[in-house]
């Protein structure tokens, strides 16, 4: 009888904390960081380090000034900084990368109340703001190592831009998969991103629903529209967006059904922008737009409590 302990729920605990989850995300991003250094050189590492450092310092400074608990040890600011860096072209001026990290942490995250309160993914919002603010520098793609760009090339168009009419030779499917092509530092290597994604699914940090729905929708729709579906799926920032940014806890629905709707919506908007839009790539816009719809999707797909009665 003495062994019986009466306590209030919850009775089952998981050891996960924000810190362990964010640490897993950082580990999952590691292959993409390695790939970015292999294909774009040491400057990639410099930009990544700057973005992470600025993001962490901004978080610390804002929380210090506003007398809030310091949350830099939960690593979420570091993750935001790193994902933002992977979304930038390697040639980005350092001050612009710093501006982006500042916007991501201060404007998108802290102004709305800090971790768990932001209405949209900080990294993706900062990327879109930078794309509007620095449209030249943000689309200045350098040729990757091992790519089929001519040896004396100064810039290299992304595969999607080439498909859209820009000059350049299309990379082969193998080059697309490994990452030897023009693009943002972290988005080119589908292999590295896939390894990271599988690790996150294995560690149960993310579920398969959003990435599969997102990538699957792009695959099916581009096939229906007469494009090369495999090429469309590997081009642009689709893997990076689907695995690391569309799965953000704060800005995506919590239930499997909601995640599926969210992923399909992202895929739909991405294809619409790629095929009929002004921009060659639509992954970041699609995630941002679906982030804004997230409260509605979460509401529609809310789990009914067992035995719950409609009030």
């Amino acid at each position, binding site marked *: 009888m003495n062994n019986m302990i009466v306590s209030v729920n919850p009775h089952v605990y998981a050891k996960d904390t924000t810190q362990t989850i964010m640490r897993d995300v950082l580990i999952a991003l590691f292959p993409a960081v390695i790939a970015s250094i292999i294909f774009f050189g040491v400057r990639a590492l410099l930009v990544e380090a700057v973005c992470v450092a600025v993001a962490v310092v901004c978080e610390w400074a804002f929380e210090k000034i506003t007398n809030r608990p310091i949350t830099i040890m939960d690593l979420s600011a570091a993750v935001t900084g790193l994902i933002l860096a992977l979304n930038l072209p390697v040639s980005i*001026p350092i001050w612009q990368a710093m501006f982006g990290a500042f916007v991501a942490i201060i*404007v998108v995250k802290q102004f709305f109340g800090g971790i768990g309160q932001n209405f949209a993914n900080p990294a993706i919002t900062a990327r879109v*703001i930078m794309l*509007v*603010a*620095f*449209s030249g520098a943000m689309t200045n793609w350098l040729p990757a190592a091992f790519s089929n760009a001519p040896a004396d090339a100064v810039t290299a168009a992304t595969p999607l831009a080439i498909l859209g009419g820009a000059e350049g030779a299309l990379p082969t499917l193998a080059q697309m998969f490994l990452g030897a092509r023009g693009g943002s530092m972290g988005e080119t290597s589908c292999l590295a991103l896939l390894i990271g994604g599988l690790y996150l699914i294995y560690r149960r940090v993310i579920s398969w629903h959003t990435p599969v729905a997102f990538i699957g929708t792009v695959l099916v729709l581009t096939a229906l529209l007469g494009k090369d579906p495999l090429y469309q799926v590997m081009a642009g920032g689709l893997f990076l967006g689907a695995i690391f940014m569309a799965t953000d806890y704060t800005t995506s629905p919590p239930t499997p059904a909601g995640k599926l709707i969210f992923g399909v919506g992202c895929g739909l908007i991405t294809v619409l922008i790629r095929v009929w839009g002004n921009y060659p790539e639509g992954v970041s816009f699609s995630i941002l737009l679906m982030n804004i719809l997230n409260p509605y999707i979460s509401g529609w797909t809310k789990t009914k409590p067992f035995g719950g009665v409609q009030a």
Partner: protein
Amino acid sequence: MKNNKLKILTNGIIKENPILVLILGTCPFLAVTTQASNAIGMGAAVTFVLLCSNVMISLLRKVISDKVRIPCYIVVIASFVTLVQMIVKAYLPALDVALGLYLPLIVVNCIILGRAEMFANKNNPLDSALDAIGMGVGYTLAMLAMASIREIFGAGTWFGLPVPVLKDNNISIMTMAPGGFAIFGILIAIINKASNGKAIKKKDFSCEGCPSAAACNGQNCAEKREAAAK
């Protein structure tokens, strides 16, 4: 008494800044603040109209029947705006092009109608003139602050003159609509922080300046005061 006059004059500059505290007339504030010179031009035009209409409405406050006061105010304001528009068109055609639609739209600017309703129709012409000058200066300063930030960082120039390093490193989103909204929000936050939130909360439910005072006879305010006392 003299102190009181000074208070009326300075009221509009920080404490009741028409844009950053009362949040009136934000449409032209967001639209024309891409260049500091436009901000000064718009500020001057609004101040002039505000001064003339406040004095005129104050002079006419005993003549205008309460029931038709809003149309009367609009007629007075519209006359002065037309005047300003003709002068600007004749002597400052560049400013006319830069301000475009927002110059005739001063007619429906909330600040001017707001001051007519809240101040000029209850006070003598001198006080109304002081209030108009204070509000006009507050408006112009807020416009200038916003336009300076947006022009310096967004275009790398100030009053059209290039700013050294920033000219080549401009953040063009600052001069676009999203940058305008973001900086507007940040400026409001700074003013609110600087005044400890008093700028907005300080109104202690007086019937003076309340547009529905006639209908409620002070009952609402009495109830609120009781609630606040508890």
